[in-house]
C-alpha cells in the first residue's frame, strides 16, 4: 500500500479509530491491532511475502530468548550467526542472487569459458532491506547485552512489522522502538497534530517535488544521448531533488503516521543538501541507515581507531557496503565508492567532524564561504547521483562525459517553469526550517492559528492541483 494512495487514505483512519476507540483499553490489543494492520498494509502489495516477515520475526524472537538464557560465548556466537545467516540469507537470495550469477557468468566468459547460468525470476519483496536490518539490530544488541530480549511476542512482531516504517524505514533500533510497545500509549493532541503536519509536508515532498522532478529527470535520463550538456546537468539536479523528496517525504509520512499512534521514530533526514562537506552530508542523509552501518559495521571494524590505512579501509568498506545495500548493480557500488572518495580527504585531514551544527545557525543567510561549501558539496552529491540513477556503469560514464562539454553553458533544452517554481519555494521553506526536525515543524508558530491553517490548506491544495499521478517510492525497491 502506498502512502500517497486512496487505499491508504481509507486504511489510516480505520486503523486510527480502531486503535484509539476499540482496542484502547489494553496495550496487548493495541499491539495486536498494529501487527494485523501492518500485515494488511504489507499484504496489500503481495500477501505471499508476509511469510518472510513472519519467519524473520519468529527466528529473531526465538534467538533473542535463547541468547538471554545462554552464557556460553561460543553458543551465543552461534545463535547470533544463525540470525545473521537467516536474515542476510533472505536478503542475499531475493536481492543479490541474480547479480552474483550474472557476474560469475561474465567473469567465466572473460576467461573464455561460457557457462549456462541458472538464473531465477525472483521478485524482490518490498522493504526486505529495511526490516531485515531492523530485526538484525535487535539480535546484535541482545547479543552484546545492550538490550534485554523481549518475552512479549506480539510486541516484538509489532516492532518488526510496524506499518509506518515497514517498507522504507526509518530503520528503527529495537532499543528505541521496542520499549514503546511495552507502555500504554496516551493520546496527545499536540503530538497528533504535529504528526498530521509532518504527513502533509511529506506528501508535499513526495507528490510535488519528487514526482514532478521525476517526470523531467526520467525524460532526460531516458534520452540522454540527444540532450545538451546543460540539459543533462539539469536532469541530474532534478534527480537529486527527486530522490530527496521521495525518500525524505516517505520518512516524514512514516514518522508523522507513527505520531498519530503515539510513537516516536527517529529523524531520518536533516536538510542534507545544506551540508558544508560530505561528512556533514552523511550525518544528515538517511541517518537511520548511516548510524546502523556505523554501529554494526564501521565500529566493529575498528572505526576511526588504528592506522590511517585501517581507517581508509573501513571508510571504503562502509560506503561500498552501503551502496550495495541499495541495489544489486555495479552502479550502486560505484556510487558508494565515489562517496568514500569524497569523504577521504576529510578523514585524512581529521576534518570529518568540522560541521556538526546547522549551517548559519544564528543568522538568516549563510556567509559566502558557507554558500560555496554547500554548492560544492551539492555538486559532488549530484555527480554521484548520476551513478545511482543510471541503468549501468557505461551509461553513467557516458552521461557524465557528455556534461563536460561547452554546451553546459547554454540554456537547457527542457525548462519546466512550474517545477522550477516549486523547487524554489521548497528550497526556501527547507532553508527557513533547517533547525527543525522537519521543515514546517515550527515554521509559522508565531502566526495566528487561522493563518497557519490557511497555509496548510494551501499546501494541501497545491498537492491536489499539481501532484503527478501516484508513483511508487524509489526506496521501495531497496
Amino acid at each position, binding site marked *: 500500500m502506498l502512502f500517497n494512495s486512496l487505499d491508504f487514505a481509507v486504511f489510516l483512519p480505520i486503523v486510527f479509530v480502531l486503535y484509539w476507540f476499540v482496542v484502547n483499553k489494553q496495550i496487548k490489543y493495541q499491539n495486536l491491532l498494529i501487527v494485523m494492520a501492518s500485515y494488511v498494509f504489507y499484504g496489500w502489495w503481495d500477501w505471499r511475502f508476509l511469510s518472510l516477515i513472519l519467519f524473520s520475526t519468529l527466528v529473531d524472537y526465538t534467538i533473542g530468548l535463547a541468547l538471554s538464557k545462554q552464557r556460553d560465548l561460543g553458543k551465543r556466537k552461534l545463535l547470533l550467526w544463525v540470525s545473521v545467516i537467516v536474515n542476510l540469507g533472505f536478503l542475499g537470495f531475493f536481492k543479490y542472487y541474480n547479480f552474483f550469477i550474472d557476474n560469475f557468468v561474465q567473469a567465466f566468459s572473460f576467461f573464455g569459458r561460457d557457462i549456462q547460468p541458472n538464473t531465477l525470476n525472483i521478485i524482490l519483496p518490498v522493504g526486505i532491506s529495511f526490516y531485515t536490518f531492523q530485526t538484525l539490530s535487535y539480535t546484535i544488541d541482545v547479543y552484546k547485552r545492550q538490550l534485554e530480549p523481549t518475552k512479549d511476542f506480539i510486541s516484538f512482531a509489532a516492532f518488526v512489522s510496524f506499518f509506518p516504517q515497514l517498507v522504507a524505514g526509518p530503520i528503527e533500533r529495537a532499543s528505541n522502538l521496542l520499549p514503546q510497545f511495552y507502555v500504554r500509549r496516551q*493520546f496527545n493532541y499536540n503530538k497528533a*497534530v504535529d504528526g498530521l503536519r509532518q504527513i502533509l509536508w511529506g506528501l508535499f515532498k513526495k507528490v510535488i517535488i519528487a514526482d514532478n522532478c521525476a517526470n523531467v529527470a526520467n525524460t532526460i535520463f531516458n534520452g540522454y544521448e540527444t540532450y545538451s550538456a546543460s540539459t543533462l546537468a539539469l536532469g541530474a539536479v532534478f534527480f537529486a531533488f527527486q530522490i530527496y523528496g521521495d525518500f525524505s517525504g516517505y520518512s516524514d509520512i512514516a514518522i508523522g503516521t507513527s505520531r498519530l499512534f503515539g510513537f516516536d521514530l527517529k529523524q531520518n533526514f536533516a536538510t542534507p543538501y545544506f551540508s558544508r562537506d560530505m561528512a556533514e552530508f552523511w550525518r544528515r542523509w538517511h541517518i537511520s541507515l548511516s548510524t546502523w552501518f556505523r554501529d554494526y559495521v564501521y565500529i566493529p571494524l575498528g572505526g576511526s581507531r588504528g592506522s590511517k590505512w585501517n581507517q581508509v579501509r573501513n571508510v571504503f568498506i562502509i560506503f561500498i557496503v552501503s551502496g550495495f545495500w541499495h541495489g544489486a548493480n555495479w552502479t550502486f557500488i560505484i556510487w558508494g565508492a565515489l562517496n568514500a572518495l569524497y569523504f577521504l580527504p576529510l578523514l585524512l585531514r581529521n576534518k570529518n567532524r568540522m560541521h556538526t551544527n546547522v549551517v548559519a545557525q544564528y543568522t538568516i543567510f549563510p556567509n559566502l564561504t558557507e554558500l560555496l561549501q554547500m554548492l560544492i558539496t551539492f555538486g559532488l552529491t549530484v555527480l554521484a547521483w548520476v551513478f545511482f540513477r543510471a541503468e549501468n556503469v557505461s551509461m553513467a560514464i557516458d552521461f557524465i562525459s557528455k556534461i563536460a562539454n561547452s554546451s553546459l553553458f547554454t540554456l537547457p533544452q527542457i525548462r519546466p517553469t512550474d517545477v522550477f517554481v516549486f523547487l524554489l519555494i521548497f528550497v526556501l521553506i527547507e532553508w527557513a526550517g533547517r533547525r527543525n526536525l522537519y521543515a514546517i515543524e515550527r515554521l509559522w508558530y508565531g502566526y495566528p492559528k487561522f493563518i497557519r491553517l490557511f497555509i496548510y*490548506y494551501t499546501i494541501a491544495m497545491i498537492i491536489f492541483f*499539481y501532484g*503527478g499521478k501516484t508513483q511508487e517510492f524509489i526506496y521501495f525497491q531497496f
Partner: protein
Amino acid sequence: MKRFIIHTILFLVVLIASFLFVFSMADGTTDAFYGKLSSPKQTSLIVGSSRASQGVHPNIIDSVYGSKGIYNYGFTISASPYGKAYYKSISSKLKRDYKKNVFIICVTPWSLAENKLTNKNEIEYPEDADFIGKTNFVNINPNIEYLLESFIPKNEAIIRNKNRKGMYQTFYVQDNGWLEVTIESDMISREFRTKNKIESYRKRLVKYNGISEYRFDYLIKTINLFKEQGDVYLVRIPVIEAMLEIENELIPDFDKKMNTVATDYQIPYINMMPFKDAYEYTDGNHLTVDSGKKFSLDLAIQMKKLKSNNN
C-alpha cells in the same frame, strides 16, 4: 481526542469540499474521455476507436437517419479495442429500456489485432489496466473515480483546459460524445503529422500478430448485445492509402472477415474505405472536422438506404 477529531474532520471537510468543487468543474474540455465517462446512460451508441470518436457526428446521423440521440462512445485504439474492458464499459453505458435503437460499430484491423508479448512485464490486454478497464462508473458526474484513478494530467488542467477551449491542440467532447479536436490545419503541419503517424503505425505493426480470437469474440458479443436493442451497422472508416497498406499487412483479409460476420449475424457491413479519396485527414488516420461531417452524412445516407431496402 475529541478536539483532535473535530478539528481534523473540519479541516478535511473544507479540503474535500474544495476538491469536489474543482472536480465539479470537469467537463468535455477536461480531456478526450472525461465527457464520455460522465454523461448519462445512452440508448443508441457509436463505438470504436479515435477514428470513430472524431469521425462520426451523432447529430448528422440523427438528422439524416432519424435516430434519436445516438451517442459517440468511441475512445482510442489503445483504450478501446474490442475486448472485455471495452465491452464492460459499453454495457454500463447502455440504457436497456428501449428496443428501437441504432448502433454503429466501427471496426479497424487494429481494434481486432492480437498484441505480441515481447517481455514478461507486458500484459496481454493492456486496456484492462488503462482507464477503460479501471473505470467502473461511466455515468456519473463528476466522475471522481476517473479523475482520481485515471486522469493523467495534473488536476490544475481541469481549470486550465476550460480556458483553452477552441485553441489549437485542444480536445472537446461535445454533449453527444463527438470528440472535437482543434489542430493546425495547414498543409505543412498536416504532412508532418501524416509522416509521423505512418512511421508510428509501421512501428506498431511489429507489435501485433494478426487477428485476435479474443477480440473477435468480443466484437461478436458487442454485436449480440446491440442486436437485442435495435439496428446494428458494422462500419469501416476510411484512411489514406499508406495507412491502408499497413492495415492490409496486419490483417490481409479484413474486409472478407467483416463481410462474413455481417452475413452470419445479419447486419450490414458498410465499408467506406473505397471512398477514401473523397475525404481529408488530419494525419492520414483521422478525418478532419469537415470531412468527418461529410463522412457522417454519407454514412447516414447509406444506413438509411439499407434500412429502407430492408423494410
